[in-house]
């Protein structure tokens, strides 16, 4: 049984220029203690999907247009976005880490205040106990001099340290699932390595599930056990990390892997193969496959029939494509 099961999630935005189907039938699941990667380029709907699960989409312009999010036997989408049930879950059983720690931490509150707030709220701790626990959390995420630095304000921390504080907040109530939305996009590679190793250690220790949302293929290859690839509001390929990278089956995934330079390739050894054209404009999309205009493998069926459903192409490996591609 999956810990969290998202079925046919639809989130639409009503804009001045037309309807944007930011998530259009997204299904994924997360198992206990698993690290899952949700990959895609900007605007593919990966962030919208997890924000929809958390019911953090502002409405209007956003709209819950359908689907189910099953967690502990209940459908979370049935709850009011700001109702008591959702608030009890957010920040305790399901938590989030955002891309930009400077804007997601409140600049006028001390680190202590921000950490203890959730502890007092969700775990009913008193002030002294919460402070104790907060210091312990900061030590866990590797903030040096935690007992002193807890009284500092966010701007006194470096970007990497702020992200550690965010991680401390995310694990403070022993969550079952952590959603990390581009957690390391704003930091340097060596800091990224520090943070990701830390997160991996923590989720293993706490037996928590982690969903890494990112555009970086290397990050998911290194850390995720299962991967979902998104394009234009849909999941177009999913499967175990090994098979996705060794035998990608969807033309978009293949294109993405061929277009990034790989470390260690000699200069001039391989010419990159770009994906032609531009990412789609999500306003008033046609019913056919959104990757069709950029696809080099398309067949006659693609232009006539609607966007294909996911189909199995190997063990736990699914693609949303009519074409069978042999090899890599």
């Amino acid at each position, binding site marked *: 049984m999956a810990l969290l099961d998202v079925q046919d999630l639809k989130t639409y935005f009503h804009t001045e220029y037309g309807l944007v189907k930011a998530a259009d039938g997204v299904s994924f699941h997360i198992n206990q203690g698993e690290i899952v990667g949700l990959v895609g380029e900007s605007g593919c709907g990966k962030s919208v999907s997890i924000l929809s699960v958390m019911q953090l989409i502002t409405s209007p312009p956003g709209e819950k247009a359908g689907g189910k999010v099953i967690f502990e036997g209940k459908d979370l989408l049935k709850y009011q976005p700001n109702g008591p049930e959702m608030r009890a879950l957010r920040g305790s059983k399901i938590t989030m880490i955002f891309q930009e720690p400077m804007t997601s931490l409140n600049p006028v509150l001390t680190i202590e205040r921000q950490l203890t707030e959730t502890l007092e709220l969700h775990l009913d701790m008193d002030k002294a106990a919460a402070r104790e626990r907060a210091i312990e959390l900061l030590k866990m995420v590797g903030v040096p001099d935690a007992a002193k630095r807890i009284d500092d304000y966010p701007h006194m921390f470096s970007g990497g*340290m702020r992200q550690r504080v965010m991680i401390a907040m995310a694990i403070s109530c022993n969550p079952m699932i952590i959603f990390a939305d581009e957690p390391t996009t704003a930091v340097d590679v060596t800091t990224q390595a520090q943070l990701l190793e830390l997160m991996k250690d923590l989720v293993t220790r706490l037996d928590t599930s982690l969903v890494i949302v990112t555009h970086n293929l290397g990050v998911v290859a290194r850390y995720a056990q299962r991967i979902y690839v998104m394009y234009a509001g849909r999941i177009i390929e999913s499967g175990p990390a090994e098979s996705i990278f060794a035998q990608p089956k969807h033309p978009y995934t293949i294109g993405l892997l061929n277009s*990034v330079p*790989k470390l260690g390739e000699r200069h001039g050894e391989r010419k990159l193969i770009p994906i032609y054209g531009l990412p789609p404009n999500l306003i008033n999309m046609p019913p056919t496959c959104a990757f069709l205009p950029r696809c080099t493998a398309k067949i006659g069926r693609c232009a006539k029939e609607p966007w294909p459903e996911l189909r199995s192409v190997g063990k736990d490996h699914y693609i949303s494509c009519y074409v069978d591609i042999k090899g890599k």
Partner: protein
Amino acid sequence: MKTSTNDMIMEVKNLKMYFPITRGLLRRKIGDVRAVDDISFEIRKHETLGLVGESGCGKTTTGRCILRLYQPTDGSIIFTGVDISKVPERKIIEHRRDMGVIFQDPFGSLNPRQSAGSIVGDPLKVHRMATGKALKDRVTELFKIVGLDPSMMDRVPHEFSGGQRQRIGIARALACNPSLIVCDEPISALDVSIQAQIINLLEELQQKLGLTYLFIAHDLAVVQHISDRVAVMYLGRIMELTDSSELYENPLHPYTKALLSAIPIPDPVAERTRMRIVLKGEVPSPVNPPPGCHFHPRCSLAIAECSQMRPPLRDVGNGHYVACIRV
């Protein structure tokens, strides 16, 4: 692999760029940000020299010094036989014609209220290289060279996609037929699927037009792909400088090793067996850098001497330079 001075297009010697920190009404100087701290390197004709490092390492500042957008604190920059670091401000325009620059942010680097054609034509007007019909023809040609439809010339930048805007920036950089182009993180603001288009374009342009690039980026995989040689910077200094494949196969400096191991590669099977070096702590402030080798507080090989003297960037054979006494 000794090269004669004839093969060199630029020689940077002991470049220093300190930004003063001032305080109070009288702007009293209280310290320096040592963005670039005494570096030397040369750029060979028709090569791509990659400059890689994390934010705050001074790579962008180095690029801007070379373009004389900043007046260097000290050192010399010899470009086509002239030390442009000493040329007075009003004369520098003559040398800027031979240098182009491509910026990181395709949104911020184009004037939103100017048409694409006028942006690309600006260098030609400034250097009085073309007017009227000749100007329009050259701009049309430049649009074609970078793969843009010349009929879009009258549009403003916001009507273009990110990748197309970067092409406008490239066309502007090419306008005066420069010999050297400084590419300052030209692809890091673009979508993954667009990055390869721009990298390929830059490579093709280099081949066809015989350009020389100084390619500044934080993504070592990209830098390694496009560069002939790579210089790794840390806290204002060059730590290692060598051929790009040599850098991957035989990295010598402990920082380079850590940097390489920190970059995840899109291959889960290979990832499982890769060595991972997770650095301790954070990059110190360039206002108050550590004495001796700037990297020693985070270095696993550091010994007492590392904190006492600055290790020189020395040749360990085959043009492989490294600034570490433990190698």
